[in-house]
């Protein structure tokens, strides 16, 4: 264990570490009054908030520290870890009114270290919190799904996997996992934000003040972030040693009502099979969104025999959202789609005698067959581009948008269903 890699020292004097227990040593900074140095023991409570979309963890640790009345110099160093130095903060928890961080110094002679100059009105024991961003800790969710042989009920088990490649051991930490994307600012965006400030022209050495130019318009193309975010608290305290991966059970819900949906994929000319369920209370879920993660699906028959059905990625699913997990092609439901009729009509001619306009009429026939032992619900999406009107349709359909319609049909085992429609497309 290398617990002491990240230390809160109080008192480094000319590069040498101060002996623990030595409460006061004089530190002489040129040009400044002599200030007191204090030592701090190891960290007490550690809380990690680990983000999903970025390699980013927000760490907070509490330390008990004894401050002298007056100015104290407190040093924190982090050799061998991936801490973002700009993020390191010190806050007094027990006595924020009387404990003030005057400044934070990144000294030249020390790498990966910060020194805080802390003013204490009274001195004495103090609980402080050191917070920082660290890279190298990652998490993801994955799921095991078990369905009954009728495919009507689902058992959903979820796990969190935590990976620690931060270079630091974390013992007895409370971990919180944040779902979804977080918006971070790039160096380029920061530079752009300075554009409207004045600059000193090197030629004249004249000083120009800040000019009011107006606010720049931001571009949000890459901006994907979180705020109405979801945090999952990992139960209990966990030890995350560096280099290790840890799996933690997060959920296990049984008897979720399941529906099997089939959908024709026109590009592939094949039918895809999907499990559909809703993240709501009726489905015994709905307490929180489901984080995205790999889902592995197994079928368990009445004798307890297990069969692998397939796997896919479960997308992030907010509460009340219908989840459709695509399990791949279904060859026992077939679709044959044909154009049965095509007519070109209403031709118009220009003065040169060329065709300047025409309309078309088309008839489409879709024949769907179910070779499975049970009834299936099949979705047939159809695309009709341009300006068109429906002339006849054998079934009702849902108009999804200007160029998309959807037929949903039920087919009994061994049967064939036919969808027939005729439309006119207005030419230009």
């Amino acid at each position, binding site marked *: 264990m290398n617990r002491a890699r990240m230390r809160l020292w109080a008192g480094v004097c000319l590069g040498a570490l101060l002996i623990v227990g030595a409460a006061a040593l004089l530190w002489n900074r040129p040009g400044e009054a002599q200030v007191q140095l204090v030592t701090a023991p190891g960290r007490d409570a550690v809380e990690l908030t680990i983000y999903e979309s970025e390699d980013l963890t*927000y760490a907070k640790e509490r330390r008990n520290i004894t401050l002298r009345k007056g100015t104290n110099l407190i040093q924190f160093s982090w050799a061998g870890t991936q801490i973002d130095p700009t993020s390191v903060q010190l806050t007094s928890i027990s006595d924020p009114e009387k404990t003030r961080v005057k400044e934070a110094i*990144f000294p030249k002679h020390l790498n990966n270290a910060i020194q805080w100059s802390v003013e204490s009105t009274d001195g004495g024991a103090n609980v402080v919190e050191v917070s920082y961003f660290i890279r190298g800790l990652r998490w993801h969710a994955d799921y095991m799904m078990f369905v009954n042989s009728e495919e009507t009920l689902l058992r959903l088990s979820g796990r969190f996997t935590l990976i620690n490649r931060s270079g630091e051991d974390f013992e007895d930490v409370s971990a919180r996992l944040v779902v979804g994307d*977080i918006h971070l600012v790039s160096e380029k965006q920061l530079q752009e*934000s300075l554009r409207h400030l004045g*600059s*000193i022209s090197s030629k004249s050495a004249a000083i120009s003040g800040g000019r009011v130019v107006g606010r720049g318009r931001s571009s*949000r193309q890459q901006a994907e972030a979180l705020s109405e975010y979801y*945090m999952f608290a990992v139960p209990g305290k966990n030890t995350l040693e560096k280099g290790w991966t840890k799996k933690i059970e997060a959920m296990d819900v049984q008897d979720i009502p399941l529906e099997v949906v089939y959908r024709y994929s026109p590009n592939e000319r094949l039918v895809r099979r999907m499990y559909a369920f809703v993240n709501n209370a009726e489905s015994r879920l709905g307490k929180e969104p489901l984080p995205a993660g790999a889902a592995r699906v197994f079928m368990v028959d009445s004798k307890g025999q297990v069969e692998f059905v397939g796997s896919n990625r479960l997308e992030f699913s907010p509460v009340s959202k219908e989840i459709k997990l695509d399990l791949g092609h279904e060859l026992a439901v077939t679709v044959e789609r044909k154009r049965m009729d095509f007519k070109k009509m209403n031709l118009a001619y220009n*003065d040169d005698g060329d065709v300047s306009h025409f309309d078309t009429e088309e008839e489409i026939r879709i024949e769907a067959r179910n070779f499975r032992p049970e009834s299936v619900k099949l979705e047939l999406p159809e695309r009709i581009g341009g300006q068109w009107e429906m002339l006849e349709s054998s079934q009702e359909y849902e108009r999804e948008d200007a160029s998309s319609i959807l037929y949903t049909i039920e087919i009994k085992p061994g049967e064939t269903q036919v969808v027939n429609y005729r439309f006119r497309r207005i030419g230009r």
Partner: protein
Amino acid sequence: MRKLLVGTLAAAFVLAAGWAAARIGLVTIPARQDIRIKIDRNNNALVQERRGITLKQGMNRIEFSWPNMKIDFNTAQLLPLEQQETISILSVAVPPNASNTLILEVESQKPNLVPFRITYLTSGISWKASYISIADMDEKTIHLEASVAISNDTVEDYHNAAFALPVGKPFRQFIQSGETKKIVLFTAPAIPVTKTYLSDPLEYPDAAAMHYVFKNDAASGLKEGMLLPGRVRQFKKDATGSVAFVGEDVLRFVPVGDEIRLYQGPARDIEVERRIMKREQKAVKRNKKGQIVSYDTDETYRIAIHNRKLSDAPLIVRAHLSNYWEMKEHSDPYERKDAGTIEFETTVPSRSEKEISFRVEGKNLQNGYVLNE
């Protein structure tokens, strides 16, 4: 550590009296005073300091040099602050093979100790502003702390220098060579904010963007005037009493009285789905060759908003239209923001769906459509 000095034998800043080249009559130079450093956005620092120089009657020769400093020698100036009528700077010269030395010939009518202002432009002193905002649980107020980090990558130490950044009040700081120092500029403990949800297909496709909106004015508790641009790390208090990091945004240059919008990311619980339900051409006019020369369009749009939150969502839904258009039907009232932009203001109740639809006719189009998607 080599320093910018006046009159030491280490030859940094040498004041020599006498017309002859010989460096004779070296005088004791008092400590520099009143250091002012103005740093611009490109991290060019204009350093001004005051030094007393003893001049003898007649011709004086002052040598000013800066080993290891990145000073633009065209900008280095020495000017007397007093007794300008008795002192004349006759020439400023650069010796051969010495790009970091200036030699001034100064004529004084009487022997005197004269304060001089030394000014030069150097690189190596830089600033970076940053902010921390902590929102309350109910997102009605934020606590904003502004800091600036000053880095000194020059070989000089600057004792008790007054730093001036492009905006904001100057502050005094002592910064050693090689050091970076971060100080808090101000804290605004409870800025009232309004949380807004905005769906704009050009800026935030498929999502409703969340912002905290507040004004840079005294009523908000901001008395600092214009704010320095910088990264804002945003936190929010949570139910456990702890704070959670919720993302970053850039605080752009904000004049006093103007609105600050801090982007909070897209609301993951609000889905906005925009569809064109119908698109038809009408009144098609053709030329003699039969080519279409103009037409009108008739288009129906549907914007479906799912609010999956536990609370109601007040939302602005923006649509971008172009060309000459006429609204024919609309499910909800809208406001015309400019010739090509309309906004619907609506509230979607918790865990429900709201549909906004409208039909626009585009008039006399020659090519293209009415609506930019």
